[in-house]
């Protein structure tokens, strides 16, 4: 794609001036038809298989619960182009809880069916939200893992309660039963002693009743003892379970300690270290962002990413400072520095030196002046071959440069002080088109002598348009001048240093 005047998806900030960019972009689109398409643009056609894979990915319920940014980033890391990702997003509609179930709703059943459908989908949504962004199997197994652990906990609790009731029974209830039985028996004896003569049958009956009651109580006691034994057995089993759990807990603790150590070494903070995260799956940055909240200290910052080999060994004092900061202490050597500009309107100084030509530019200059004019389509040919010969000649470039400035003055006088943004010397390629009005203020500042040193008030849209059309006209004119061969080429040097903002004081010192 060469240009897009109205791109479908847009993640960059839209400056208000970008609205005005459209007419300007149309203006320069005509001019751009001449130039070859940029190599910095992805010109592959959309690959249908990749799009379908992406659609499958995006349709997964877990993925639907994750933020859009993470889904895009995942697809980008899989190598999909922007167009393919946009196409996949277009094909997968963004679901709402009621729409996702897709049942035709009739008035009578509408509410009930909606309610029924909403609750399971809402149940799915929170469940899918918990393993955020990690679409790997690690997430699902973690869930199952949790369930298993929960089951173990439940069993443990039951066993504990069973043991507890057994203990209570044994300690409190059984003695009470026994004492009650003893009481009954002693009362029986008393009764017997008191009423032996009067009502022996009654007493006998009472005794018999008491004995049977005692027997029943004894049976109960025996039963309870049996229960106790079984409870003991359960208790033993439970204790075994507990010990196993304890072992597992120990292992987990040691693992987390190891992880903490690693994390501590590699800095939970410092983007500097890119230490370990708690799970190995991507996206690593998900952990970094979700686990840490911003605060004043650096530790909160970017990557807790996975490192393939292990963390690099950090200086000991680094670990000390990290530990200090994590405890909330502030290192004592920090001073309160006021680094604000004393005069924010301090004018930018005038440069006292011309920008020196870069070694890679000088090489091109010498080559293009030595060779015949290449066709414009060769703008992007590799310069390696050309430059490998003369790279040692660059030391002579300084001499050439001194002549540059003088002839530059003539040249720029000839073009009435107009400036081009890019070096027009390389006539083998076409200078890039003027940027759209999104940068009109900058463009205006670059290309025209400034009336005031600083423009604090923004220009209106009309002024933008007027300036941009002026500028494009002027640029095209200048381009023609440079393309027609101009003055400079005859001298054998054709390097024109880069443009700058022209200040009032230095109108005579102009670099075209």
């Amino acid at each position, binding site marked *: 794609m060469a240009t897009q005047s109205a791109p479908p*998806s*847009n*993640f*960059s*900030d839209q400056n208000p001036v970008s609205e005005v960019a459209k007419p300007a972009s149309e203006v320069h689109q005509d001019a751009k038809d001449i130039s070859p398409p*940029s*190599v*910095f*643009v*992805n010109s592959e056609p959309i690959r249908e298989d990749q799009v379908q894979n992406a659609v499958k990915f995006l349709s997964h319920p877990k993925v639907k619960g994750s933020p859009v940014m*993470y889904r895009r*980033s995942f697809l*980008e*890391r899989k190598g999909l182009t*922007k167009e393919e990702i946009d196409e996949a997003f277009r094909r997968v509609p963004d679901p709402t809880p009621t729409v996702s179930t897709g049942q035709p709703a009739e008035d009578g059943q509408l509410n009930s069916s909606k309610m029924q459908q909403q609750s399971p989908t809402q149940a799915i949504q929170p469940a899918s939200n918990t393993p955020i962004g990690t679409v790997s199997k690690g997430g699902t197994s973690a869930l199952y893992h949790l369930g298993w652990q929960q089951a173990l906990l439940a069993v443990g609790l039951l066993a504990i309660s069973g043991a507890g009731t057994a203990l209570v029974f044994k300690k409190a209830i059984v003695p009470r039963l026994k004492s009650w039985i003893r009481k009954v028996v002693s009362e029986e004896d008393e009764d017997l002693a008191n009423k032996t003569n009067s009502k022996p049958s009654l007493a006998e009956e009472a005794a018999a009743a008491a004995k049977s009651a005692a027997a029943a109580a004894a049976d109960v006691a025996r039963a309870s003892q049996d229960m106790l034994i079984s409870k003991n057995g359960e208790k033993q089993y439970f204790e075994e379970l507990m010990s196993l759990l304890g072992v597992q807990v120990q292992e987990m603790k040691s693992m987390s300690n190891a992880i903490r150590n690693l994390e501590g070494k590699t800095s939970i903070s*410092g*983007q*500097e270290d*890119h230490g370990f995260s708690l799970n190995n799956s991507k996206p*690593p*940055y998900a952990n970094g*962002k979700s686990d840490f909240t911003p605060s*004043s200290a*650096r*530790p909160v910052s*970017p*990557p807790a*990413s996975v*490192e*393939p*080999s292990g963390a*690099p060994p950090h*200086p000991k004092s*680094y670990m000390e*400072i990290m530990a200090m*900061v994590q405890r909330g202490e502030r290192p004592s*050597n920090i001073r309160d520095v006021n*680094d604000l*500009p*004393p005069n*924010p309107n301090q004018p*930018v*100084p005038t*440069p*006292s*030196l011309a*920008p*020196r030509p*870069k*070694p*890679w530019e000088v*090489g091109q200059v010498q080559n293009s002046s030595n060779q015949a004019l290449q066709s414009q389509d060769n703008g*992007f040919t590799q*310069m390696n071959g050309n430059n490998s010969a003369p*790279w040692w000649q660059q030391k002579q470039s300084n001499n050439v440069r001194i002549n540059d400035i003088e002839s530059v003055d003539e040249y720029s006088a000839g073009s009435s002080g107009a400036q081009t943004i890019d*070096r027009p010397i390389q006539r083998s390629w076409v200078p890039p088109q003027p940027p759209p009005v*999104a940068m009109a203020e900058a463009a205006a500042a670059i290309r025209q002598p400034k009336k005031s040193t600083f423009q604090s008030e923004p220009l209106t849209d009309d002024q933008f348009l007027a300036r941009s059309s002026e500028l494009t006209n002027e640029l095209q004119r200048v381009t023609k001048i440079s393309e027609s061969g101009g003055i400079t080429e005859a001298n054998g040097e054709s390097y024109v240093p*880069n443009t*700058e*903002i022209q200040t009032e004081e230095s109108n005579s010192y102009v670099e075209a």
Partner: protein
Amino acid sequence: MPVFKTPFNGYSVKFSPFYEHRLAVGTAQNFGILGNGRLHILDLNPSQPISQFASFDTSDGVYDVAWSESHDSLVLAAVADGSIKLYDLSLPPTSNPIRSLHEHTRETHSIDYNPTRPDSFLSSSWDDTVKLWTIDRPTSVRTFKEHAYCVYSSSWNPRHADVFASASGDCTVRVWDVREPGSTMIIPGHEFEILSVDWNKYDDCILATGSVDKSIKIWDVRNYRVPMSVLNGHGYAVRKVKFSPHRGSLLVSCSYDMSVCMWDYMVEDALVGRYDHHTEFAVGVDMSVLVEGLMASTGWDELVYVWQHGTDPRAQ
């Protein structure tokens, strides 16, 4: 002696494009975790030790420095509080900084100055955005927000004034054109975070990326699905890559394995030089545009070394 000791931990070093003897060093206290920062302007003297021309204190660490390509006395500092400070060396220290541009909501990690349109520069930040600025404006011209995680580095194309690349913790490199509203190319370069990106000065379609996965990959944007070359050799994350301004196939890199390596990616055995002079993470490296073979590096060991490629950095 080609070494300078800074009071704070070194983060970035850049040669001036105007003066062969001048370089800027950005440092941060307490390894950049929490503390002040300082920007040093150093002068190299042929037979004398490195001397300091000026230094400026900042309230937060300086993560990166950049020289203006248009004004010989202007230098920029990327500060960990999200601001960019502009210093004018022709003014006395009490008049500095002359600007503080504070728009990023997280740490500013790098600044790159446009060599072909020399009033504009880019700042990359941990707030996932890249901002485009010009020297004369107090606010940014554009914000490029597409990366899903911190942007660690951005680099202008040496030939096309509108094109730049950005490297991010979301494991992608994006190529942008400032005339387009969004990125024009997404290169999923590594499986881990990409910390640095730089263009080949002699072939504008080739760029190099350095990543946490310890490798450096060379990419051709015309065929970006597969890297042209993968350079292995570092023992830990590669913190910075920089193509040589003088040889098209040479590039230099520094890493958390404390070494600075020189590579030639056109050659079978790409590692052509290795310097182990640092005793802590080597975090900043630069090659001089004006003097061929002159390089400088700095690291958390609070030392700045300047040496000629092929010589020992610690020698006189």
